[in-house]
Structure formats: structure tokens, C-alpha cells
């Protein structure tokens, strides 16, 4: 009896697995590619983090792409088919998905994969095969430099931080800055490098550099040191968890100067943890849903109507990414890979929801991020 039951469950689970595997395949949603004259049709492959720990990223990216796709196809100049593959956030899976798209699906270009670690594996292969590849969520150093066919529209920390430092210096007429950073984390260390460089470029006087470690709860000694040197602003490369506590302790010690943070500091959690002490934090971000801009508000509304929640950074960067591809396809005139690559390299002044986007000679994004500050307990655009 027991044996029969076991056999039965085994058979059932195999069937379920097969069914799941079938669902997990690519879902290309063809939308009647009619070959009008002067209309470019192309198939674009997408590799995204669709299942596993970061499935939320994949969902946001796919949503942003599909919204852009329906708008673009509705406009009638370009007709884009999306072939979407799941990478589960694994570099090897991302590579096999990309190979499938390039070889058997014969796509004109690829969007994704989601993570920088995946992208660094896939992009060289795409570059070798002469397939243009666009990262919409990859902010690591050196991504666009992988090859001729590699682009991205996701702004790296090294570009976002100088924008926020510059704005803060301008706003508060700062001459002296103190820097604090977490020295046991790759991300916060990279942020520190960008901050130091930005401060040096602006000829600021760096009065002290203090370090801390993850999970520390006592920053009083560092802050006392900073307080005595009276900086005009504090540049703080921290994740929100440590950063919020640093701000709380700074404010209670009577340090009331603004803080400039990196992308890790950009989280509503700061307001939850630090309360009023979070006021005066300045961060640069590629995407802000509250931006006072008609295009942005239309996108937020359309996205909300379609998917029920507000678009995040990943959705917005994917949405603009497809528009960049569509624009390049239109200029290329047909779905040839090399022509698409050349047209992408020429990308200039695309007016997207992120702002005005161009590519530099490496294929890296050039744009002005939005600078936000926490005022009266919420993130607001710094004008």
C-alpha cells in the first residue's frame, strides 16, 4: 500500500515538474507583424531574473518592457516582438537562455540579463556573435566597456554620486566636507571612491575620513570627531540600515548639516528608522515616481492601471530601454544586427521617463539623475 502510494506521488511530481518546465519556456507574444512598407519589424530577446530570490526585479523589468512594447507597436513605426527567457539570477542559466535567443530564436538584439554578475558572462558572448545587448539594471563598473555591441541605460554609482554632491555643494555653498563610509562592503567602498573623487573634482576640503563596519551600532566616536571639525556637509557611503542610525546619532549629537548618500542610502526605510533625523539626506537616483513631469506621471499612471502598483527603478529603466531600441531600429531601417548596433551607438537625446538619455562612445548612459532630499519626513525633488 505504502509502496503504491509512493509510486503514485513520484509519478505525480514528475508530471508537475514537466508541466512547470513547459510553462517556464519562452513566451513570445507575437502581435501580428504586418510587413508594411517603411515599418521595421524586429524580434528582441529578453533575459531576466524571472524566478527565485530576485523574481520581483524580473517582474518589474518584464512589466516595463511589455508596457513600452504595446505603446511602441501602437504607434506604428516599429513593430517589436519580445522573446522572454528566465535566468533565475544564475549566470550559467542566463548564458544558455541568451544562446538560445541568439541561435534558435534569431533575435536582433538582447535586453538583460538583470544582474551585473550575469551580464558579465553573457555580454562578451553576445559581443562575439555580433548581437547588440542592452543592460537596463546593471550598474557595475566596466559593463559598457565589454565590447562594441554592449550598452546600458542604468546609471552607475560613479555617475550618480557626483550629481548629488555637486547639487548639495551648490545648494549649501559647502567648502568643507567630512566623509564616512563602510569599509567592509564592496558597494559602500565603491561609493566612497566616487565621493572622494567628486569632492576632489570640486576642490572641496576633506576635513576627515571616518570608517565603520556593517552592523555596528555605536558611531558616537566617529561623529564626535566629525563634529569638532565643523564640516558644511557630510558625505556618507552607507547602506540604509547603518546610514539611518548614523544620521539619528548625528542629529542627537547636534550635527545638523546635510548628509549626501549613495544609492544604498536611497530607501524609504531611512525615514522609518531615523524619523525626523533623516531630514537633510540628499541622494541622486535615476528614477523618482514623484517627479514633476508630465511624461513621468503618464507612465506611472499607465503602469499602475496595468499592474496595480507603482513602477520602480527597474521598470522605468526597462521601459526606456525598449524605447531606445525602438528608436535605433527606426533609424536603422531594418532588423539587421550590425545596423541596430550602429544606430544604438548614435543614441542621443532620447526623451524618456528617466530624463534625457544619450550614449557615450563606450555605450554608457549619459543622463542627469534626479537629486532627492528628505524634507518634512519624505523624499522630495531638490530643485
Amino acid at each position, binding site marked *: 500500500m505504502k509502496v503504491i502510494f509512493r509510486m503514485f506521488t513520484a509519478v505525480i511530481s514528475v508530471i508537475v515538474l514537466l508541466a512547470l518546465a513547459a510553462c517556464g519556456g519562452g513566451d513570445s507574444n507575437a502581435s501580428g507583424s504586418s510587413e508594411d512598407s517603411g515599418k521595421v519589424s524586429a524580434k528582441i530577446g529578453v533575459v531576466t531574473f524571472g524566478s527565485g530570490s530576485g523574481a520581483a526585479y524580473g517582474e518589474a523589468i518584464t512589466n516595463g518592457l511589455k508596457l513600452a512594447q504595446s505603446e511602441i507597436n501602437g504607434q506604428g513605426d516599429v513593430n517589436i516582438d519580445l522573446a522572454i527567457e528566465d535566468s533565475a539570477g544564475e549566470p550559467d542559466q542566463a548564458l544558455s537562455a541568451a544562446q538560445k535567443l541568439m541561435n534558435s530564436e534569431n533575435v536582433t538584439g538582447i535586453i538583460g540579463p538583470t544582474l551585473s554578475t550575469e551580464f558579465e558572462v553573457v555580454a562578451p558572448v553576445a559581443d562575439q556573435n555580433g548581437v547588440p545587448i542592452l543592460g537596463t539594471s546593471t550598474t557595475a563598473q566596466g559593463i559598457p566597456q565589454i565590447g562594441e555591441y554592449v550598452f546600458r541605460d542604468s546609471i552607475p554609482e560613479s555617475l550618480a554620486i557626483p550629481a548629488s554632491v555637486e547639487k548639495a555643494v551648490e545648494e549649501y555653498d559647502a567648502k568643507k566636507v567630512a566623509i564616512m563610509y563602510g*569599509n567592509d562592503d564592496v558597494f559602500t567602498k565603491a561609493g566612497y571612491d566616487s565621493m572622494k573623487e567628486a569632492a576632489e573634482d570640486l576642490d572641496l576640503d576633506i576635513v*576627515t575620513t*571616518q*570608517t*565603520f*563596519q556593517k*552592523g*555596528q*551600532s*555605536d*558611531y*558616537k*566616536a*566617529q561623529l*564626535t*570627531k566629525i563634529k*569638532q571639525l565643523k564640516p558644511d556637509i557630510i558625505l556618507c557611503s552607507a547602506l540604509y*540600515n*547603518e546610514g*539611518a*542610525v548614523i544620521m*539619528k*546619532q548625528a542629529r*542627537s*549629537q*547636534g550635527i545638523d548639516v546635510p548628509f549626501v548618500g549613495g544609492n544604498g542610502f536611497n530607501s524609504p*526605510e531611512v525615514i522609518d*528608522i*531615523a*524619523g525626523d533625523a533623516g531630514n537633510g539626506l540628499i541622494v541622486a537616483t535615476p528614477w523618482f515616481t514623484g517627479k514633476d513631469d508630465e511624461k513621468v506621471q503618464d507612465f506611472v499612471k499607465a503602469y499602475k492601471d496595468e499592474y496595480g502598483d507603482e513602477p520602480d527603478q527597474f521598470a522605468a529603466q526597462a521601459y526606456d530601454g525598449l524605447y531606445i531600441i525602438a528608436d535605433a531600429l527606426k533609424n536603422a531601417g531594418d532588423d539587421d544586427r550590425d545596423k541596430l548596433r550602429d544606430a544604438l551607438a548614435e543614441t542621443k537625446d532620447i526623451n524618456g521617463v528617466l530624463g534625457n538619455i544619450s550614449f557615450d562612445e563606450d555605450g554608457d548612459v549619459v543622463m542627469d539623475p534626479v537629486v532627492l532630499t528628505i524634507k518634512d519626513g519624505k523624499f522630495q525633488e531638490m530643485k
Partner: protein
Amino acid sequence: MLWEQLINGITTGSIYAIVALGYTLVFGVLGIINMAHGEIFMFGAFMGVVTTSTLGLPIWLAFVIATVVTAIMGYLLERLALRPLRGKPESSHLAPLIATIGVSTFLENLADKLFGSGNHPVQNSLSEIRFSVGTVNIYLVQIVIFCISVALMIALSYWLLKTKGGKALRATAENLETASLLGVNTKRIIMITVVLASAIGGIAGILVGMAFSSVNPQMGLSIGLKGLAIIILGGMGNVKGAMAGGMILGLSETLIVALGLSGYRDAIAFIIIIVILLVRPQGIFGRKEAA
């Protein structure tokens, strides 16, 4: 400014000292390192968060709740993790250590489930009150922490030296079998020790929450390792050593930062230990084992 840094150092040192007291008590009586002590401390800190921020109750009540909850945790730790392993000739002397590591992992994840990960603020009106002496700011919280740590040390020393219970505890620490032959209820004494150590850890937790207004489920490990370092520094199982060691560590960490070497903050504890152990292998206040 040096004065402010000194005050910061004394605050940090007082907290370290209280944490180390709990360690040293358990080590003195049972001869084991209680790796769950840091997590019990963390629970004490969370009781402070829950009482003040979530329920909006006054801070003194948080002390009461934290003491009671951590005392109960100490009781459970002794009953479920330590007692079953005691006096079994076939069990390794490492068994209690591994058991407490297990408990610590369990508690950390329990806190994560119960309270959520990340930092939680502690709201209290006390943390904003400060006095200025010239240019130096002293916070009421810092004074409270220092007073509580000194009071704890005095009370504990008095209890150990002058009362019957304390004598029984010292007798148990000296030799468990002999003490029990002479009529000391060693089971009860051990129970009291673990409960007391845990309650002291809970008080330290609340103080940290008040002083630094951040509490998270992972905070037990780092403070636990510091507590360990301190008892090695001060002498295993020694109350005075725990206090002095805590102060030395807190002050040296703060002064290292004041000198502008904040990157070396965590290294200093271990550098001091290496130096001390080279000079005095038994710790500052430790006694030489009779060879």
C-alpha cells in the same frame, strides 16, 4: 573634544563591562563559554524597542520587562540546553559550548522572524536630554549607563562576597562536587547564576538601545565576541576583571577613532588581548592556576 570622546569611551566601556559580567559569571561557575549570551542581550534590547516604540510605554517599564523576559530565557537555556549535558561522563566537554552556539543561532533567527531584520529605532525622551559643561555635551543616557554599570558591579561584588547565596555560588565555582557534598544546592545555584547573568545581559541590551538607538537581530554576535575578548583580558570568571576589561576596551576603541584610525577599531580589542596575554597569560585580574 577629548573630554567628549572620553565620555563616549566610558559609555561604550560600561556597556561592554555589563555584557562581560554575564559572561564571567557563567564561566566562573560552570566553566563554559555561553555563546548565547549575546543573543539574550539582543532580546533584552528588543524588549526595549517593543515596550517603548511599539507599545508606547515608559522606559522604566522596559527595564522590568527586559529583565523578566531575559531571566526566563536564562532559565530555559539552563533547563533545556545545559542541564541535560551536565555530569554525563560520556559527553564531551565541548558539548555545552556547541549547545549554546545552537541556542544563539536559534535566537537570532527567532528575532528575525518576530521583529523583522534591519535596524529598529528606540524611542525615548531620555536620549535627547543633555547637559553642557563648557563646550562638552554630556547626555543623561550616558550618565545613567555609567551609574547602572557601577551599581551592578557593586551589588554583584557585595552579593558574592558577603551573602550566603554568594558564598554558595563561589563554593560551587571552586568545586562543584565538594560544594554539593557540603550541602550546597548546586543545581539551584547554577540556575540562579544563569538566570542572573541573562538578566544582566538583558539590562545591557536596553542600555545599548537607549544609547545608540539602533537594535537589530544580528547585534548579539559582535557584542558577544567583544564580551569574550574582555573576559580573556580581565581574567576568566573575575568580576573586577570584567569591569576593568570592558572599560579598557571601550576607551581604547573610542580613542583609536579619535586619533583618526577608525578602520582599526575592531582590531584594537584583539591587539590588546595578544599583548596582555603575552605579558600576563591569566589576564589582568586572573589568578594563576595551581600547577
